[in-house]
């Protein structure tokens, strides 16, 4: 039997150590090889794709980026690994898991349970993206999959999102990225952070500087939103203008 390539992610060194010991314990029946380790979600994103891991043992509560979000980014990767979530006792996480029927192990993990989960997960393959989405809440990062690499773009750096044909353009102060997610879903996920100004455009509320009126004085007024760090304005549709205006009024109160 060939070795199962396993990647371990946990912010606590003793926890990673424990998992390694358990894997070694049942190596006779289920041979495994550890191909990488990470202390947070960002390290997972950086190091997992090149590791060739088939299964990821993923802690939920990690600094910087937690396990749920990391799994969401990985789900888009070609040849994404199967995921076994591991959590101490986070009521919210456990609840989210049960609602979305994701498999998880509770710490401290038992060898027999770990072996069973590895077998089951490697047979089932990577978790379904939409289950992860429902379980994890709003992300801190957008991810752009570039062949076998994932580039993370912090959500807070994004000034606006614009739908163009199949893609959505993420505009940051320093550049642009393309992601393949529907704008409607993004609007729902980041309702706290972005507001729709047009059928095809969401802008970061925090980046709004002012509104410029366009069009002649005898026409019905049109408005452009001016965003911090971006030259030129973006048009606000007539339909969205009342919503946007309301929001800005709220902010100035």
């Amino acid at each position, binding site marked *: 039997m060939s070795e199962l390539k396993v990647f371990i992610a946990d*912010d*606590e060194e*003793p926890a990673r150590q*424990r998992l390694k010991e358990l894997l070694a314990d049942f190596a006779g029946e289920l041979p495994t090889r550890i191909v990488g380790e990470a202390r947070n979600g960002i390290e997972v994103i950086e190091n997992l794709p090149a590791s060739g891991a088939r299964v990821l043992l993923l802690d939920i509560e990690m600094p*910087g980026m937690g396990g749920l979000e990391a799994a969401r980014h990985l789900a888009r990767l070609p040849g994404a690994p199967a995921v076994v979530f591991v959590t*101490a*006792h986070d009521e919210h996480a456990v609840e989210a898991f049960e609602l979305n029927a994701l498999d998880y192990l509770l*710490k401290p993990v038992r060898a027999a349970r770990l072996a069973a989960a590895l077998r089951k997960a490697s047979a089932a393959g990577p978790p379904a993206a939409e289950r992860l989405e429902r379980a994890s809440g709003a992300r801190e990062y957008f991810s752009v999959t570039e062949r076998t690499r994932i580039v993370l773009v912090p959500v807070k750096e994004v000034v606006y999102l614009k739908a163009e044909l199949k893609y959505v353009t993420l505009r940051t102060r320093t550049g642009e990225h393309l992601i393949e997610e529907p704008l409607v879903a993004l609007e729902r996920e980041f309702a706290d952070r972005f507001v729709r100004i047009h059928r095809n455009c969401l802008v970061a509320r925090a980046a709004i500087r002012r509104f410029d009126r366009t069009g002649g004085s005898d026409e019905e007024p049109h408005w452009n939103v001016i965003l911090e760090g971006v030259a030129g304005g973006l048009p606000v549709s007539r339909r969205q203008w009342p919503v946007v205006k309301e929001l800005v009024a709220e902010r100035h109160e």
Partner: protein
Amino acid sequence: MIGTNLLALGAVIYAEPGWAQTLERYTRAAAMLEPVLLASLVVLYVASPWLAPMPYWRGCGIVLLVEIVLAALAHVLYAKGGSALVSGGLPRAVALAALATAVLLGYFRLMVRAYSPALAEARLQALQARIRPHFLFNSLNAVLSLVRRDPQRAERTLEDLADLFRELMADGRRFVRLADEIALLERYAAIEQLRLGERLRISWELDGAPSDALLPPMVLQPLLENAVYHGVEPATEVSEITVRIERRGDRVLARIENPYHKLEPAHRGNRMALENIRERLRLFFDAEATLVSKIEAGRYRVEIEIPYKSGGVHAA
């Protein structure tokens, strides 16, 4: 007494239309009322050893009876002297005395209910500090990882955990010595250090800590736990917590500081812990203890101030 005087004042205000007359009549009424009230005080005080063990309602009955007898006696005496305690004869005086007594007894019962030690105790127990399950399971997991590599450290860690949980499950209604509470903080810190390794740094400033000071148990540990949970765990870099405890005159100050991170949804629940401690401090020290928290220059700081008391460890 104050209660009855107020009642008398109320009655007079009700009876008299003008303010000037009101005052005059109140003085007159008070002069007549006071002997009755003083007599009641003496009688009830003398009788209190017999009254106290009685069932509540029988006690009330006897107090009522005493008051009626005293009022009747006073009425008869005053009548002999040519003045009247209340107009309208003996039955009216008796009825008023009974009414005033009943009202006051009712009021006292209400007060007792609100401030009863039993209730305070129940609240204390409910408020007893709770360690996060998250911490327990992660710690057990860390100990398991030590069992093979470093059995001695595993043993020490389990001993620390045992001490921590013993304190957590102990009676929360007593004082502990600051030295013991500090020892507990160090045990807790040792466990977290094992879990978090390099990421956690604690700087202890305890030179001015009065080891004999008394405080409620498990007041400082939840604050340190908060500092680790909110200040260290969400950070990828090394984070430093400062623990400073000192005596300033007749006060004891404890200050715990940690790097501040905006609360993620999963990491809320800090308010609860602080409210819990604040309430316990109030039950132990009333208004004499304070707990304040603030965010300053990227650091979160919580400060407790309690009166410096030393001596034997006893129930609160």
